[in-house]
Structure formats: C-alpha cells, structure tokens
C-alpha cells in the first residue's frame, strides 16, 4: 500500500454508514427517529459500566433478504495489555 494512506475514517465511509442506515429504514418503513431512541436506550443501559465509551456507540444496518439486522457497536475504553514477545 502507498505509505500516505491513513487510518482516519474517510468521508465516504461516514457517508456510507449514514446512507445504509437511512436506506434500511426507508425500506422497512421505520421512523428514522427510532435510531436515536435505540441509541439512547443503549447508552442508558450501558452507562453504569465505566469501561464503555458511550459517546462512541454506533448503529449499523445490514440489509439482506431474509436476514435484516442492525448491529450496535460499543467501543470499550482502557489500554490493551502489553503483549509479551
């Protein structure tokens, strides 16, 4: 790979995630406000765990025939244990 490529999330990836979610709710005829409601409920439920980074919670949509699902991404705070060689 070209050494200039960065790990930072590309603008199109942000767009893609938003668009997939929007289209998912369009297709299912679900009020998009449900996304925020789900997020709030998750944040409320997980806020008592100090290792959960509630600000980083994300909702992803997956549309497949017969297998539509949303996935909730919950980032965890703290540092990784150093691996020994």
């Amino acid at each position, binding site marked *: 790979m070209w050494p200039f490529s960065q790990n930072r999330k590309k603008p*199109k*990836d942000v767009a893609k995630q938003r*668009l997939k979610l929007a*289209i998912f709710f369009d*297709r299912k005829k679900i009020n998009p406000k449900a996304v925020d409601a789900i997020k709030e409920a998750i944040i409320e439920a997980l806020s008592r765990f100090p290792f959960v980074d509630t600000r980083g919670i994300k909702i992803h949509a997956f549309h497949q025939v017969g297998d539509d699902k949303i996935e909730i991404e919950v980032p965890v705070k703290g540092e990784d244990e150093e691996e020994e060689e």
Partner: protein
Amino acid sequence: MAKKVYSITSGKGGVGKSTITGNLATALAIKGYKVLAIDADIGLRNLDLILGLENRIVYDIVHVVEGICSPEKALVKDKRTKNLYLLPAAQTKDKSAVKPDDLVAIVEQLRDKFDFIFIDSPAGIEEGFKTAVTPADDVLIVTNPEMAAIRDADRVVGLCENMGKHEPKLIINRIDPEKVERGEMFDVSDVLDILSLELIGVVPEDSNMVAFVNSGEPAVLSEESIAGQEIRNIAERLLGKDIPFIDLKKLKKGKGFLGKLKDLFGG
C-alpha cells in the same frame, strides 16, 4: 421474446438520464441496429438537444396520444446516424398528458419496427415515472456515486419491483477517479454494496461532456471521449457481450510526478 424496450430512470434529477439515453441509443444505431429513443419527460423536453434534433421536430408524443398524427409520423429521423429515431416529448403539456396505457399502446405499435427502444423517464416517482417504466422489458437505473442519488435509486428499485419490473440494471454515472482515490466519493464497490443491483455500466466523469451536449453531438460518436467509450461498452453488454468494466485507477488524468512514481511501483 427478446428484451428490446428499456426504460432509463433514476428518481433524482440531473444524474445524466437523458445523456445516457441519447448516447446509448446512438451507440446501438451506429452498430447498425434500428433504434428508437422516446422522450417521456413531458414538459421538460431535452433528449432532442442531446441528439441535436431540436430543430427538426414537427409532431410530438402528445400529438400521437391526442390522435393528431400516427406514431410513425411523429418520429424524427437522425441525420448522422441513419438507424436512429426520436419520438420527442411535448414541451407545452405536463407530465400527466401521457398515461401509462398511452405509452404502452405507442410502444406496441412501434415495437416490431425496431431492434431497441429506449424510454427516457422524467425525474421523480410520480405518474410520469410510472408512464415511462410501464412499457419496459427491462429497467436501467442511472445513479451518481453520491448519497441523495443512491437513496433515490433505492426508492425507484422498490417502486419498479411493485410494478413487476424485477432486477433493474445499474449504471453508475459521473464517477470521479480522483475523488474516489481520496476517499471522498463512493467507489463502484460501495455503491453495489448499498444497492445490490446488477451493474451494467460505469461511466467516468468527463469534462468534455458539456461540449458534446453544447454541439448536439452525442459523445459516443467520438473516439476521444472516455464517457462515450464506456457508454459504447454498455451497448455491447446489452447485446450480451462480456466487456470488463473500466479500471478507474488507470484513468486518473493529469497526475504529477508522484502519480507516475506510484504507477511505476504498482502503488
């Protein structure tokens, strides 16, 4: 019965429906097929400009619907490409002047006289869209690699499905290799991931396109035009040929020293 009637639609306006329709029709006509392009965008006639036929229109599709002339009499024959005919939209009426059944009847009357019929749909998802799509054997959806166009395309896929038009084919128009490279624009794979449609065309952004429309000469007539080349490839795919899609990475124009260096090292 072989597929020959194609409707070109998009939901969103300005994605290049008429340009694709005019060029695709021309591309097949220069290959020797007898082609009819129908402008179903009543009240917002544009296909005539793209084909350079705007000064030769006597009758239009609404005259046919009103029984003032026969469908054959309303056809405008292209002067350059002998096998290409245009059925122009009316400029004075509105989109509801031609109903789905009207267009079905017109297409049925003309069907046997042509190898291919392309119907240029208006933007939107109202009656004009339904009129344009109803006679189709197959639907081609044009989109741009950007959010609003893709979302609208998805809506249109659902509506086509409800009308019994299954598995429309996708044309991704105006994709800019440099923006894709910088991660600012969706790549072909992103669009397919979101829409899950069968791809039939990838047409790169081509700054010369405006000049072609200005001169009334379809880009497919030029060997120089990259977009024209890709639309000719769509024509080949409609004929059943297996043509690989364009490699956008090889297209980045005006690349400087770094770009050339990258090519050198296969970056």
